[in-house]
């Protein structure tokens, strides 16, 4: 079971983390807002993209079939993987069959989701992450802390130290030097690896094209040099038409990094063809379910699958801004992680994710495909509570407390009297304007929250005393 609450205190107390989060997130948010204010019909684009997604998800099976048909026509092979384990097994079997010792990887959240690297390592196959951020966290043997910027929690100094310690880089705090070191090292890997594994941002059903967005050119290299390319995608990534890409790319890139366009958008149609000088000779597209069809089956929760993984909701979330990505203890962090994790896995495994939000609504405002994250969070909370209630049919105390509360609230005089009593009572527990209540159920509630003491005079008293003055 993942316990976010067990991680938050440490995250909040980590001064370095707090500084890194503050610095990088404010930069990202700023450029995102600039890039979006540049587009007068942003709302129209959002609605369009959402409609395309809603439509596609309602006919997902048909579009996946169409995609498979087109990919096969072009000499690629489609693998249907119902679980992460099946997808991993496919990669392992292929690597063994081809006697591959080294794999280069482009950034793929799906590969994190199915813990591919761990399995490859166990099978003694070297898997090199080629995206710089992803490589940094791999070197540090950590998990990514942000779906777009995996090493966002690390400062330049920490990264430099890591490169000096692990790669023997000459001491330098310069981001350019660090990047140079990575470029040189990675070249070797690119030229010797025999399988390239990447994620997928979109897959176009009508043409069988997979689309991968990137800035560094590590994906371009991963799909050009090795003789085999394996692309991993969740079944929700398919879109019907090429023409829809104009809108999706505009929304994705501006939301994710605040650029007008990423350096490279790769459109790949199967393996190399006759006469082409390079490119993979074999192309495999893995379609992964891993819990997605379960989400698809719920009319309201289905929209979770519209997500294009732009990361904007993380950047804008007051909870993510304070606790960072690792505290979520899951592949996907922030608001999207909060709704996706308990659905992909189960509410028993991730019972706290739905509560890791203040429900401020910023994630919905910023989401380029208008996913109603706050409402989904509430729905999930309902489910968690429903399960709890079923298990503990008793709860007589809570019921009684609510009945008393209702009775008090129904009469102004009862309410005022209760206030007066509480004001007298609280004197024993007050400390600097806050209440310290060291007994249940209050002690649990105030463990992570402040309970302010009631002010000396109620609003009603203040109001009537001011009325008396002329």
């Amino acid at each position, binding site marked *: 079971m993942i316990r976010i609450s067990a991680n938050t205190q440490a995250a909040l107390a980590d001064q370095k983390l707090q500084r890194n989060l503050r*610095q990088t997130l404010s*930069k990202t948010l700023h450029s995102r807002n600039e890039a979006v204010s540049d587009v007068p019909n942003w709302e129209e684009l959002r609605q369009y993209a959402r*409609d*395309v997604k*809603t*439509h596609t*998800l309602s006919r997902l099976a048909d579009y*996946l079939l169409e995609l498979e048909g*087109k990919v096969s026509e*072009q000499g690629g092979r489609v693998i*249907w993987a119902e679980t992460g384990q099946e997808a991993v097994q496919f990669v392992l079997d292929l690597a063994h069959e081809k006697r591959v010792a080294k794999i280069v990887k482009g950034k793929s959240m799906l590969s994190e989701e199915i813990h591919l690297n761990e399995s490859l390592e166990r099978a003694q196959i070297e898997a090199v992450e080629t*995206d*710089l951020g992803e490589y940094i966290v791999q070197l540090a043997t950590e998990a990514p802390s942000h779906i777009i910027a995996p*090493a966002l929690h690390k*400062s330049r100094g920490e*990264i430099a130290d890591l490169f000096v310690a692990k790669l023997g880089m000459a001491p330098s705090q310069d*981001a*350019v030097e660090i*990047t140079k070191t*990575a*470029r040189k090292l990675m*070249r070797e890997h690119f*030229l010797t690896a025999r399988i390239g594994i990447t994620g997928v941002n979109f897959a176009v059903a009508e*043409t069988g094209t997979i689309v991968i967005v990137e*800035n*560094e*050119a590590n994906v*371009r*290299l991963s799909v*050009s*040099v090795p003789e085999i390319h394996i692309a991993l995608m969740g079944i929700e990534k398919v879109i*019907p038409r*090429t*023409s*829809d*890409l*104009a809108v999706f*790319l*505009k929304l994705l890139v501006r939301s994710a990094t605040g*650029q*007008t*366009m990423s*350096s*490279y*958008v*790769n*459109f*790949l*149609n*199967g393996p190399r*063809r*006759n006469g*082409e*000088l*390079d*490119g993979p000779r074999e192309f495999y597209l893995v379609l992964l*379910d891993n819990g997605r*069809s379960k989400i*698809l089956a719920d*009319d309201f929760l289905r929209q979770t699958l519209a997500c294009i993984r732009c990361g904007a909701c993380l950047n804008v979330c007051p909870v993510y801004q304070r606790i960072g990505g690792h505290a979520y203890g899951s592949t996907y962090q922030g608001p999207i992680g909060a709704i996706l994790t308990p659905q992909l896995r189960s509410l028993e495994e991730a019972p706290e994710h739905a509560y890791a939000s203040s429900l401020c609504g910023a994630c919905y405002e910023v989401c380029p495909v208008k996913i109603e994250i706050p409402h989904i969070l509430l729905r999930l909370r309902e489910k968690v509570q429903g399960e709890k209630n079923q298990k503990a049919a008793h709860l007589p105390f809570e019921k009684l407390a609510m009945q008393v509360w209702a009775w008090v609230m129904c009469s102004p005089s009862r309410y005022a009297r209760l206030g007066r009593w509480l004001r007298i009572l609280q004197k024993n527990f007050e400390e600097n304007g806050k209440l310290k209540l060291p007994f249940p159920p209050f002690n649990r509630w105030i463990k992570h929250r402040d309970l302010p003491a009631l002010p000396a005079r109620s609003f009603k008293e203040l109001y009537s005393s001011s009325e008396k003055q002329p």
Partner: protein
Amino acid sequence: MLEKVRRACDQAEGVELPGQSPQFPQYTDPVAKFRQELERTGGVFFDARQPKELPAVLTSVMKQSDSTEIYWEDEQLFQRHGLPFTLRNPEAFAKGFLVYSFHFRQEMKLPILLNSKRYERSELARVSLSASSAGLGVAETGSVVHEVRSGAGRLLSVLPPAHVVFLSEKDLLMNHAELFRSLPLGQYGSALTLVTGPSRTADIEKTLVIGVHGPKQLFVILTS
């Protein structure tokens, strides 16, 4: 698995696939917009719509990329952008970095490596500047489209530290709506890349660093 997916969305209430694409911006001077956007990403723009500019432009590209030779993508590039006729003047390249001509049109006195047949990875990794022709360009974002076709490959435009792209003015589109209406996905080759500026990263404290795994320099030469 497909059955499971089908059952899951069987009852789903879908909306129709939207027909009309939202508006994308139009520009009175698409070339100026293209240039502005390209330069914003760190790319370098050259206007060679007057063919007589080409020698000077190429000289400048080679100087800026500190290169003495160019690896050309294919012969078509010369015809398409009118190169053989304008570059016949050897003096244009007599400025110190005229090293050698490589089994292609000796009389051009242009340091050339042609990729077909001699496509060696080790050689590619050594090249400092490569050239290709863009199928399309987009003013909205300063992007060019690189297509892989028979006789060409994916690596030439990505391995060298500097890359120069020839774009003809008639192939410059306004915006991405136009682009994706006419993008020939999968029709000619197995890969197509939309390139916008040089390779970059912001993975270290969101600080922009140009040139990670791909070209550090991207030049675009606009021809007529």
